[in-house]
């Protein structure tokens, strides 16, 4: 594997590392729980995506074999990341008095599912 392929893999790894770093930085920097959720649930998706594409390119270049493990990782990531964020948000709404007051109205007779447990 020479030239362009190597550069492409290196560039993708760098892009991936950058977005994962920014996601983690956001987790540390942003001031409250709900804002912190945004960093790791998004900035890391593109980061890990780039790393996986780099891995696939590398396998094609090095062994001449197509590797599609990585697609599976992507699928599992897309399934788990939103569910995790959703559960964290629900737990936070349940526990935080302050944020409970700032929820927007449902516009429906029923309340939000996390708080409306007895109905």
């Amino acid at each position, binding site marked *: 594997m020479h030239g362009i392929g190597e550069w492409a893999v290196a560039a993708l790894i760098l892009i991936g590392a950058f977005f994962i770093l920014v996601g983690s930085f*956001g987790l540390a920097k942003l001031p409250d729980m709900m804002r912190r959720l*945004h960093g790791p649930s998004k900035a890391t*998706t593109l980061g890990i995506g780039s790393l996986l594409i780099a891995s696939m390119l590398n396998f094609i270049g090095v062994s001449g074999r197509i590797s599609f*493990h990585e697609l599976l990782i992507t699928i599992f990531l897309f399934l788990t990341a939103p569910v995790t964020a959703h559960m964290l948000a*629900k737990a936070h709404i349940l526990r935080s008095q302050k944020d409970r007051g700032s929820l927007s109205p449902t516009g*429906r007779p029923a309340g939000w599912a996390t708080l409306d447990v007895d109905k």
Partner: protein
Amino acid sequence: MAMRLFPHPLLTVWIVVVWILLVNTITFGHLVLGLVLGVLIPLTTSAYWPGRPRVRSPLMMIEFMLVVLWDIVVSNIQVASLILFRRGDSLQSRFITVPLDLNSPEAITVLAGTITMTPGTVSADISADGRALLVHCLEADGADDTVAQIKHRYERRLKRIFE
């Protein structure tokens, strides 16, 4: 008969695909093994899956996935720049309500997941009657635009896919 053997035909296909992806090679043996799993697993678990979600237009689904992939790339860059160049306190974050036109649980689940993966929004809760989503915006200068965009880009397509 076919219904009894394959209570969830889509799940069968999906298990075969996942098995092939897991072993990372396409050989006849693994195809057969995947097919055996694809028949056995839906058979043994069908008692817990009474409903059978319908996908009405697979082509629309591909279009939806491309739109979402594109939005994920855009949203990553947006959120990264918000994190890097803005002070955390200066972000106008707040909750907004997205009223739902969708009825099927599968479609609502996909919509909630999509909202979390795309520009500056995380879905946080659903109303107790399942007719509205609570969404948290990282930077909500145009909350109405965000709602309109979610409904136009994602919900409209999901409605055509699932309902």
